[in-house]
């Protein structure tokens, strides 16, 4: 009789535990659902994360392989489930970062991006897919995360981080990640983290290289301690100009995830006063000892003069996007539209079409009548290229018996303007007299407006 009572009590206890676990899961799912359907277009105050003290049986099974690590253990896993992490930028770094944080069981994941998914993102932004093209990246990433781990609360923000919304947003997340791609946002996130007293796990990647540092953490420097002044805008290269091998931001995003998991589970980071540099070409990681927090830093120093967020686009002299800048170096008379150039082609007017893109881009696509002399070769006055230019011009001159019209083209119509300025100086000196114009909008405008079969990149 006593045995039966004991057994019943035990069974009851087990059922109660099961019910509690199911309720918790239901709650998380409902909250997750409502979050997902509500793409955040502006920053609102979220309800606090419900604090866990134990792991459910399902948690134990799901996270068993990492629970076995003494460095993490149950305590660390419970800590992860109680942490909110904001990911600024759901691109090449943000995707693998968010993916591993969700897989590891982070409590809440804020996913912020102002952009939408494009085909040219997919080689590196691995949470997005062909079917989510055109959707907000934040939403696309949140959907992928949900398929992976529905117990993680995802909050997708489809908005541009700005001085007006950054502080309200950042105060809701104890841990911040910088995964964005432009200088103004970098200073904005840095300053907002310093003002809120939060560590910033920051990474970047370009071409075959990556860099990672944890800023504003345990006496280490903030971004401004290292770089008090922003770089001149013309020295900043973005992924759409410089290119990037997809796996390189993948590697850096994974390293960010590792540091976030270490900080969130109470182990601390290895990079608070270190810069990790990765060179994928040479297959080399190297860790550099950085300066400590700078006493004279305007935001984290002893006497900070920057106590409110500022206008970062003005401070940096560039826009808070990675979209290409449009230069205006020439007058209207020095440029032709793609439609006007098409008429010149149709009219068989003798002329020279000079493509000034680097060879690697010419290999992707070019107009068959063009000759290629990269802008850098024109600037360096490379002998073989100058000879080619001279000879082509004098051949045309013999045909036309008049001044040779030269049209310069590049991808978007920025470099072509610089080339026109160079060629005008060379005209009559290093070459025969020429009239030079550039094709406004470049080959991408040609592809959009004239020849739809011409590739875009």
């Amino acid at each position, binding site marked *: 009789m006593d045995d039966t009572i004991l057994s019943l009590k035990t069974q009851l206890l087990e059922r109660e535990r099961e019910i509690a676990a199911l309720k918790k899961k239901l709650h998380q799912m409902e909250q997750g659902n409502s979050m997902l359907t509500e793409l955040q277009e502006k920053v609102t105050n979220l309800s606090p994360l419900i604090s866990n003290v134990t792991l459910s049986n399902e948690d134990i099974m799901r996270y068993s392989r990492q629970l076995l690590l003494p460095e993490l253990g149950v305590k660390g896993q419970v800590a992860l489930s109680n942490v909110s992490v904001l990911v600024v*930028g759901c*691109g*090449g*770094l*943000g995707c693998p970062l968010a993916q591993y944080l969700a897989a590891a069981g982070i409590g809440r994941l804020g996913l912020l991006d102002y952009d939408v998914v494009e085909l040219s993102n997919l080689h590196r932004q691995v949470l997005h897919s062909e079917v989510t093209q055109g959707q907000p990246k934040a939403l696309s990433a949140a959907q992928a995360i949900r398929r992976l781990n529905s117990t993680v609360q995802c909050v997708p923000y489809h908005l541009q981080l700005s001085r007006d919304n950054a502080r309200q947003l950042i105060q809701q997340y104890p841990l911040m990640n910088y*995964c*964005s*791609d*432009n*200088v103004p946002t*970098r200073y904005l996130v840095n300053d907002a983290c310093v003002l809120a007293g939060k560590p910033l796990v920051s*990474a*970047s*990647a*370009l*071409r075959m*290289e*990556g*860099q990672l540092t944890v800023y504003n953490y345990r006496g280490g420097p903030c971004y401004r301690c*290292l*770089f*008090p*002044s*922003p*770089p*001149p805008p*013309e*020295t*900043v*290269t*973005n*992924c759409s100009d*410089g290119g*990037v091998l997809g796996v390189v*931001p993948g590697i850096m995003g994974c390293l960010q995830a590792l540091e976030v998991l270490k900080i969130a589970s109470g182990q601390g980071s290895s990079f608070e006063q270190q*810069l990790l*540099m990765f*060179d994928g070409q*040479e297959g080399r990681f*190297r860790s*550099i*000892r*950085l*300066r400590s927090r700078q006493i004279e830093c305007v935001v984290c120093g002893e006497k900070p003069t920057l106590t409110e967020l500022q206008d970062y686009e003005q401070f940096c002299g560039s826009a808070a996007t*990675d979209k290409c800048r449009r230069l205006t170096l020439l007058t209207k008379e020095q440029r032709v539209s793609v439609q006007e150039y098409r008429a010149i082609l149709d009219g068989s007017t003798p002329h020279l079409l000079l493509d000034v893109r680097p060879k690697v881009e010419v290999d992707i696509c070019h107009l068959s009548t063009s000759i290629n002399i990269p802008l850098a070769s024109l*600037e*360096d006055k490379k002998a073989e290229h100058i000879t080619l230019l001279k000879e082509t011009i004098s051949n045309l001159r013999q045909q036309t018996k008049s001044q040779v019209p030269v049209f310069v083209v590049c991808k978007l119509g920025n470099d072509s303007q610089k080339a026109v300025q160079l060629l005008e100086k060379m005209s009559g000196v290093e070459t025969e007299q020429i009239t030079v114009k550039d094709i406004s909008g470049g080959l991408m405008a040609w592809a959009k407006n004239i020849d739809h079969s011409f590739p875009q990149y």
Partner: protein
Amino acid sequence: MAAPLGLHLEFGGGAELLFDGVKNHHVALPGQSDPWDMKQLLAWIRGNMLKERPELFMQGDTVRPGILVLINDADWELMGELEYQLQDQDNVVFISTLHGG
């Protein structure tokens, strides 16, 4: 009289594009009456290695904002920046910060 110095210079993060895309350079600085410091090295790089557009690498007598200088794997701020006196076989790295994501 300071003896000639052999240095290993490295450029990365895109800074190598100003040096014909070459990341590693072994250079020999001639002997001179005073020891070589970083300020003189930068002037030497500008005069001997940098062909085009020095403004993409330098501003005044120092590196432009956005380039981090490392001496023997440490931030140059820890080593005295422009005043650091170079030793034979020092390794000096110029790294441009990346902004891609």
